[in-house]
């Protein structure tokens, strides 16, 4: 892996895994067992997308796949499907990362919304085709909307706390190559 050779990149990859694990276990904390009327945001998705658009090399497909698969297993979701969709969505965003780099934040937000809607719909569609019982549609819609509302916050925290910024045009990486 040519661009993965610097210690900072490996450090940030590790940080992504650690943050994702914290988010997963934060959700597992047993506090309230009543069914909720509204679904909270999926911060794991927001974090993954925000990082994939800023520094694609920090969120390799393998770590996204394994982390989301772990979440699938722990959260009692159909294992593998959401993980596969997340990998596809992340790769799609990575492909657009270079184009979105000098666009305003609104465009990025729209791109994320599009991808997230697409994979959520794909998820429901596949589950419906295979006749897997699924959550009510309203709850999924709230889930998607809440995640998108929280996306800018996740982006801000990623930028200011963890220093995951978009590479400015003309930035060089350690090896003197344009990113």
């Amino acid at each position, binding site marked *: *892996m*040519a*661009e993965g050779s610097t210690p900072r990149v490996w450090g940030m990859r590790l940080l992504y895994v650690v943050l994702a694990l914290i988010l*997963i*276990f934060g*959700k*597992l*904390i*047993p*506090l*309230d*067992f*009543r*069914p*909720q009327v*509204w*679904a*909270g945001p999926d911060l794991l998705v927001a974090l993954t997308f925000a990082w994939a658009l800023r520094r694609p090399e920090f969120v390799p*497909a*393998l770590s996204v*796949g394994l982390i989301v*698969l*772990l*979440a699938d*297993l*722990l*959260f*009692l*979701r*159909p*294992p*593998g*499907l959401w*993980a*596969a969709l997340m*990998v*596809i969505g992340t*790769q799609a965003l990575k492909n657009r990362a270079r184009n979105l780099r000098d666009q305003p934040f609104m465009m990025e937000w729209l791109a994320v919304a599009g991808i997230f809607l697409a994979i959520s719909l794909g998820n429901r569609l596949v589950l419906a085709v*295979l006749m*897997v*019982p*699924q*959550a*009510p549609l309203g*709850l*999924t819609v709230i*889930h998607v909307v809440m995640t998108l509302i929280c996306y800018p916050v996740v982006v801000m925290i990623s930028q200011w706390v963890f220093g995951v910024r978009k590479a400015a045009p003309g930035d060089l990486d350690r*090896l*003197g*190559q344009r990113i």
Partner: protein
Amino acid sequence: MAKDRSQADDFLGPLKRLLVGVLVLCLIGLFLVWRIDSPRVERFRAAVVDRVVPNVDWAMAPVTATVNLVRDFQSYQRIVQQNQDLRNELQKMKAWKEAALQLEQENARLLDLNKVRLDPRLTFVTGVVLADSGSPFRQSVLLNVGARDGIVDGWATMDGIGLVGRISGVGRDTSRVILLTDPASRIPATIQPSGQTAIVQGDNTAAPPISFLEDPDLVRPGDRVVSSGDGGVFPAGLLIGQVAADPGGRLRVVLAADYERLEFLRVLRNPGTEVIRDPGALVAPASERSAPAPLPEDGDILSETEDGNG
């Protein structure tokens, strides 16, 4: 060096895409296997949960404790009021306790007079709640008891008062309880005093609806809902809750268990209901082996009844 890298990129680009494709295919393959052969993958899930969750319990426990502490602290503000309420309630409870004791004695006497053979007492294993489902779409909790403690899939789980759910997924040290509110939960129930049977069907709301009710006119809000034991999955007679009608007129169960705070849960050991395999000696052609021996059996039943009631 830069040149090296760009060459490496040319070489790595397609390879990486291929690897991502393989990863996606593996994940979709896992999903399809789960759809086709669910029990095997669910066992795998239970094993993963079993390995992961107890290991992070040390980190989750303090957070849970802190949040609960803060919540308790908030309730200090109305502690005087609460104390008074509790005292009043205690007075009422004392009267009820007296009545219950008298009824219990009377009941025991009547059962004794009628020579009723009672079910053997249910025993239970108590577990601590480790984690919840973590997803707004599913309602389940993880307990810290598992196959090591003899937990078996399908056993009923209660808190002190009412039914909470059933075991689904057992690891070595952990087991998952699907709560009654989960969309996948279906519990056969009897509604007292009318004796109608129905299914309590979880739908991700706090009060699961009652379905497959034969005659809704016989059921009133406030009736008790207990498990019926139909299908041999659950022991009969466990309290589920009370009937209530929602604004749409649909009958729902207000659960007796305190879902706001599930901390310790009892898993009821269910030895299983006995199945009668005997074809029935009177109907089937008589043979020497299946001829009943009435007298000694009668004596057995009598003595066992006395044991059971004593």
